[in-house]
């Protein structure tokens, strides 16, 4: 672990990206305590403050550093709360998709035969189908809400994990030590849990980081289209969508700042994921 960190430290861009991710996660965790306003408490909103540019001092007496939106919400507070929801959805979807995908992938690699053929056929079919379309359909069928959205995101993403786990597990299955373990009276599930699963984890973690970023982007896209979370829990996508209508009249900050927050988060997670992948990849090792 220490050696891993030492190598990681050599790439300063990746270090900055990691710092950004940590700061955003902390800000999201502490959102209720560090933001000047609770953006969902309608009583604290004042329409007199609506659509004011960044730096405006509102009726509550503090500075709106990033301006306010159409309801007079402090945009900085709304963005931090939005990041909180986006991260929640991304991490929840990523973890569920990873669990389901890894289970299916390892199971099919271990079971072989028709189980393998059936599962991997479905997975391949799904990989050729764009994730956004599948998520769109599921949201349309299931309706709106947090858990429905997570289900849609998981369904759209588990296939990537299944493919990755399957690839890693089949490679592992053919190694001598696994065959040796099979020769002992150990039960099959124990070999899978103790030997195959740990060796599948590194690639899964890499795919996992990237897929969390993808889930956040996908959630933002769905929310932007008005098909994501209900308006009572605005994620970044919805903040951007709300600001979109004011963009033509020059009030660009309502959309632009939530968008920048979203991009910074996604790009930072991707850079961290790339660095981890490079370090796990033995071919790139010096």
């Amino acid at each position, binding site marked *: 672990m220490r050696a891993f960190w030492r190598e990681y430290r050599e790439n300063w861009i990746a270090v900055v990206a990691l710092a950004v991710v940590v700061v955003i996660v902390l800000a999201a965790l502490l959102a209720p305590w560090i933001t000047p306003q609770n953006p969902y408490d309608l009583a604290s909103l004042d329409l007199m403050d609506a659509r004011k540019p960044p730096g405006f001092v509102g009726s509550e007496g503090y500075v709106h550093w990033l301006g306010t939106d159409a309801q007079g919400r402090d945009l900085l507070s709304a963005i931090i709360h939005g990041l909180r929801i986006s991260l929640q959805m991304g991490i929840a979807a990523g973890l569920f998709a990873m669990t389901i995908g890894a289970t299916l992938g390892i199971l099919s690699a271990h079971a072989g035969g028709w189980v393998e053929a059936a599962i991997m056929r479905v997975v391949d*079919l799904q990989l*050729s*189908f*764009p994730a*956004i*379309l599948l998520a*769109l*359909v599921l*949201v*349309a*069928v299931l309706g709106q809400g947090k858990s429905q959205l997570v289900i849609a995101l998981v369904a759209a993403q588990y296939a990537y994990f299944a493919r990755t786990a399957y690839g890693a597990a089949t490679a592992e299955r053919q190694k001598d030590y696994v065959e040796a373990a099979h020769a002992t009276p150990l039960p099959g599930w124990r070999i899978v849990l103790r030997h195959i699963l740990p060796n599948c984890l590194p690639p899964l973690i890499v795919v996992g980081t990237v897929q969390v*970023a993808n889930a956040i*982007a996908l959630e*933002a*896209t769905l929310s*932007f*289209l*008005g*098909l994501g979370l209900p308006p009572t829990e605005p994620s970044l*996508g919805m903040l*951007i969508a709300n600001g*979109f209508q004011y*963009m*033509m009249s*020059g009030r*660009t900050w309502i*959309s*632009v700042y939530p*968008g920048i927050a*979203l*991009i910074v988060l*996604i*790009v930072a997670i*991707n850079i961290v994921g790339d660095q981890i992948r490079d370090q796990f990849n033995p071919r790139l090792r010096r």
Partner: protein
Amino acid sequence: MLGFIIQRLLQAGLVMLAMSALVFIGVYAIGNPIDVLISPDATQDIRAAAIKSMGLDLPLWQQYLAFLGRLLSGDFGRSFVFGTPVIDLVLARLPATLELALASVLIGAFIGIPLGIYAGYKPESPIARGIMAVSVLGFSVPTFWVGLILILFFAVHLDWLPAGNRGPTAEFLGVQWSFLTKEGLTFLILPALNLSLFKLAMMIRLARAGTREVMLTDTVKFARAAGLSEMTILRRHVLRLISIPLVTVFGLEFGSTLAFAVVTETIFSWPGVGKLIIESITSLDRPVMVAYLVLVAFLFVTINLVVDLSYALLDPRLRRGGRGA
């Protein structure tokens, strides 16, 4: 070869069958089918009569067969919102989407491939690094956000291009097209650019990886020894060698372009099928949803089939009846 074609045709048919079953279960069986097929304003008597006449009292598998039969004859029912046959609605909107998708795929190919070849030819140059940075952004930044920035910059800030809608069209082969009028073309640029970003990034990566590999082969060494100019080598040898994977991805990407058009069309209020599906989801217009899903699935399967078959034509190893990957 014939065996290969038959095998792929069977596979495509099977996939379509599975997709139609999924759509049937998703939209008809999970949702209340009565709400799907009968307008909510209908009276009790009309409802009862409709349930009987549409066979909704029959067992599920019989309903599915009837559903399949209607699909095959092109009958998707009537839209609740517009009151017109769904198939007409979708077909009327399809040219706009096809045009947008085609334009964006072309942008991706004609800009992405040269940039990718350059980045693979001189991987250490600062320009190549810049190209790669752009392609990373193209992969990770969500389409809708890029669309917003494009509108903000080119339509609001610079006021060069229109921010949305389709603009004037001209008729060709009985269908309205934007690219035939000069003004229509200006409406097409921003959405097409927005939609092409992902493809652009992908083409750059593929072309770069292919070029780097081909540049190390003997083909290039001999071509250089024969005194061909670098430009000729890139055009005649490198481009030809990297074209097979590019063609595959090109074809496959066309399908996903149609899907991503949903986002782009919403931002630029482009009147295509993508905008139609979003409208139908928000207004719970289920017949339109079914028609769109079946149509997209059909397009996907067809594209996959065509790509597979053209791959077989391009690659002599597959032509001799070898097993397809």
